[in-house]
């Protein structure tokens, strides 16, 4: 099967039962994406498919032929960290680090959903065209990513600093 991973075209021949997660980790030498529960409950395996976040453990790789996958290895620009990665360091957004790749990819996907006007369970006005990332919105939208260390406060602070409604203006 052929697909694009972190901007590069790749080919792989795998058993039809292979999940997208196992394809990345076991066949494409990209172990940054983590296997937590392997049943869609923890979010450690979150990757972006054409910019949209999904649980790669519940995805059969064969369903994603021809698509463009972004993993945590693809977020930085060479040696320059993605602003969200820098914010995770700044705000202590991790302890053991196992959930971090999923948290990062998930938050990048979340920011895109917010920009596209995708509502959430806590969105007051469903018909609103513009949404802002309040504290409640951030927590609800990131509820698919668990952190067993309990680094949630740092994670929330890092994401809020990068995408939040009250973040200071940053120059790219």
């Amino acid at each position, binding site marked *: 099967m052929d697909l694009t991973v972190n901007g590069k075209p790749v080919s792989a021949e795998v058993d039809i039962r292979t999940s997208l997660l196992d394809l990345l980790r076991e066949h494409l030498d990209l172990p940054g994406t983590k296997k937590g529960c392997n049943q869609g409950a923890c979010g450690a395996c979150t990757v972006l498919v054409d910019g949209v976040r999904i649980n790669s453990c*519940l995805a059969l790789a064969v369903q994603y032929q021809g698509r463009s996958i972004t993993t945590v290895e693809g977020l930085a620009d060479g040696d320059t960290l993605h602003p969200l990665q820098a914010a995770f360091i700044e705000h202590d957004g991790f302890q053991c680090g196992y959930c971090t790749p999923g948290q990062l990819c998930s938050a990048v996907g979340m920011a895109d959903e917010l920009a596209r006007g*995708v509502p959430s369970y806590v969105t007051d006005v469903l018909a609103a065209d513009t949404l802002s990332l309040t504290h409640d919105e951030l927590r609800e939208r990131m509820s698919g*990513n668990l952190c067993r260390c309990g680094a949630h406060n740092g994670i929330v602070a890092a994401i809020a600093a990068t995408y939040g409604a009250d973040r200071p203006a940053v120059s790219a």
Partner: protein
Amino acid sequence: MTPFTYFRADDTAGALRTGAGADARYLGGGTNLVDLMREGIERPRTLVDVTAVSTEIEDDADGGLVIGAGVTNTALASDRRVRTRYPLVARAILAGASAQIRNMATVGGNLLQRTRCTYFYDEAAACNKRVPGSGCDAREGFNRIHAILGASSACVATHPSDLCIALAALDAEVTVVGPDGERRIAFADLHLLPGETPERETSVRQGELIVAVHLPAPPVGRSAYRKVRDRASYAFALVSVAAVLDVGEDRVVRDVRLALGGVAHKPWRATRAEAMLRGRFADEAAFAAAAAAELADAAPLRDNGFKIELARRTIAAVLYELAGEAA
């Protein structure tokens, strides 16, 4: 996971050609089916990927909407027509799962997802749904999440969907296409109570493919979806209530639709409560009486008796809130 052959269907005809066999399954986002295959609960020999089939949401001639079965949960909840005209549908979807799962999951798959009864998933446990005739370990086991309405001696599992509860309240219809052509199923007839055959969960026949959900024109009145669960997000419902209430200036109930999740093997349309409320003065006493009547036949198991009171209170609270807004 048992090996399988994979086909990606480009259209309905292609899907039906490969999906007609007894050991074939249609694959949507895979968020439930892939997990069930990994656990050995589902062992299809053919997987027909239908995520590229029926992916549009279109206006219907009668003022309603036709939702393609391949539309993702996120796309449905984000659609402007759904957000403005069917907020109940958007609210119900957004109450379910996580953003990642909603991005993958399709409408058709949501309708056909299977129970999250822990005994159904545990191959070491007896489960009439998984192995007909083997018994039900949930009946005498840990059954806090199980059914209080419409259950049978064979099965006490609940239907896990949030979306389906809203669709039940809105009198949606489902179009299926099969080898014998196309037919429409009223939402109330889509899912089945367990009876003696809990392995039969819907009226969709082998080989038939759900292609669309039809929402009739939006009902008059205000609506709400309230979900009670063990944590604030990303958990299945213990009890959920989808309600539409239309109260006149004289404070009399002109129309009401009420459906319950988390309490039965299928989305539970509370027809008894609805009948009691139509034409009645919309006050707290009427809501409480209707809720009590709906739960009158509820049968608790060892651990789930709390759901009866929880359902009563949630129904009454949601209706009271909607009546207040309408005033």
